[in-house]
């Protein structure tokens, strides 16, 4: 028997195990998945929790329920991968050997990495919303908060779901407007990027949406520390921004065992080939989803498109054939913009988000880079699709590779030479 070992039973790990279980003969292959707990979280659902429009329970289900029969689940904390011995060691000293390894342990917010962030004010006036615990605590805070300076802050890129802080900001604006206290709330969006988003066309449009909602943007802000006494965030170039309520996206890092095993970069992401996810160092080690060091968004949609490409390739790889499918970095993300509307962006390694229709050219029904109600319904419906189609590994009626059909090339707004560097 050969063994495929998958580390992590999140979005990528669950899909890979389920898809390969169907493709690999069960009398030849064991598929084992390791995770440290039983709870599978639908992370895109967290964004609604602070505003009371989703309950914590809706977003959590048992992992086992979403793994196919014939996939073995091992509960345990991963201590170390020994890639030269094809072995994974767990914290309780159990050892699992493998023929092929898929690392899919994701990325996590790490408030402990910024001085003062998880200090006295943590979950009092400083919150994150990338954990269910943080989103729930923030929801309680928002219910009784009657205004002041709200600072929405990103520590450092890359972060998972890079549009989520923008969504939070738009939803907060709508939430306070609804509560009739918007005039008592001063909102500032603080980012290490030079604008609202990473890609020029989307950045300009999303920047305009912030401006029209009277939200100030503080760009190029690289945080050094959170001062709990004065309630300010302080940058390396000594800018200080005061807050009454800080909603921060802490530094995101891959799992610590990746670093301990000497398999990661400076943020514990596993370097792999951009198109095949194979490690350049070990011919039987892959990394998928957020755990991989890929130059595209860390998002469930990327994990989904990546897994589609990966399963075909893996079957070739184990037969000693060349991996001929190439991942293009395809990502698409809903961006909730408040008042029951949302935008949708669709892009890859080479093509930035552009306006148009998705998934069917000219028809949609979803609209790219445009605020519509249909997009919002798309986002809400996606929760059902996630649990019932995506995780079981059913093919969705959308193309895996990004398509230019239905998109309009509007040209890149050109920054002036050297201006953006000064």
């Amino acid at each position, binding site marked *: 028997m050969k063994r495929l070992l998958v580390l992590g039973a999140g979005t990528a790990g669950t899909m890979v195990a389920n898809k390969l279980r169907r493709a690999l003969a069960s009398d030849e292959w064991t598929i084992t998945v390791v995770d440290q707990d039983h709870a599978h979280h639908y992370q895109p659902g967290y964004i609604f929790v602070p505003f009371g429009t989703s309950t914590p329970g809706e977003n959590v289900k048992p992992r086992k329920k979403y793994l196919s029969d014939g996939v073995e689940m091992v509960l345990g904390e991963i201590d170390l991968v020994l890639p030269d011995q094809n072995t994974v060691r767990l914290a309780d000293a159990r050892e699992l050997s493998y023929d092929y390894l898929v690392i899919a342990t994701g990325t996590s917010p790490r408030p402990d990495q910024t001085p003062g962030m998880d200090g006295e004010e943590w979950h009092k006036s400083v919150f994150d919303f990338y954990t269910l615990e943080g989103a729930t605590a923030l929801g309680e805070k928002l219910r009784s908060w009657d205004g002041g300076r709200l600072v929405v802050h990103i520590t*450092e890129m890359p972060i998972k779901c890079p549009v989520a802080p923008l969504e939070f900001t738009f939803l907060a604006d709508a939430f306070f407007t609804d509560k009739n206290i918007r005039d008592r709330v001063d909102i500032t969006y603080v980012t290490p990027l*030079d604008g609202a988003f990473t890609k020029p066309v989307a950045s300009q449009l999303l920047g305009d949406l912030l401006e029209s909602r009277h939200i100030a943007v503080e760009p190029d802000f690289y945080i050094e520390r959170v001062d709990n006494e004065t309630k300010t965030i302080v940058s*390396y170039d000594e800018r200080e921004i005061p807050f009454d309520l800080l909603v921060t996206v802490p530094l995101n890092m891959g799992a610590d065992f990746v670093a301990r095993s000497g398999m990661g970069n400076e*943020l514990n992401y596993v370097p792999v080939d951009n198109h095949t996810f194979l490690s350049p160092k070990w011919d039987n080690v892959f990394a998928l989803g957020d755990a991989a060091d890929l130059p595209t968004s860390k998002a469930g949609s990327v994990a989904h498109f990546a897994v589609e490409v990966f399963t075909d390739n893996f079957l070739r790889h184990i037969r000693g054939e060349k991996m001929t499918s190439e991942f293009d970095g395809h990502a698409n993300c809903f961006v909730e913009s408040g008042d029951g509307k949302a935008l949708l962006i669709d892009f890859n390694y080479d093509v930035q988000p552009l306006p148009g229709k998705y998934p069917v050219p000219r028809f949609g029904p979803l609209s790219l880079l445009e605020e519509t109600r249909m997009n919002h319904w798309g986002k809400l419906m996606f929760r059902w699709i996630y649990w019932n189609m995506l995780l079981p590994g059913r093919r969705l009626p959308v193309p895996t590779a990004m398509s230019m059909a239905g998109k309009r090339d509007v040209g890149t707004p050109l920054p002036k030479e*050297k201006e953006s560097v000064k």
Partner: protein
Amino acid sequence: MSLAVIADREVHVDEEGFLTEYDEWSEELAQTLATNIGVELTDPHWKAIRFLREDFKMQGETPTLRRVTTIGQIPTKDLFQLFPKKPAKKMAYIAGLPKPAGCV
């Protein structure tokens, strides 16, 4: 992508003026690039620039600020003093490397 003449040499640059060809860079060119954005190069500047050049050669991408700090061992605070406001971009510009992806 277009051609620009910097320090009497013809080089390939992107729309923001970042060099796109690794081998078209020289230390002399770096002096001019630095002057363009108001940076006067001293030894600590060169330590950072040389780290960027070396790291790009090995990794194939412009290192992040965190990488310059952790692998290149230059404190972030110092980088902000040497290359005020936008150290990652300024270092890449002077080192003749692609604009840092800022990620995605």
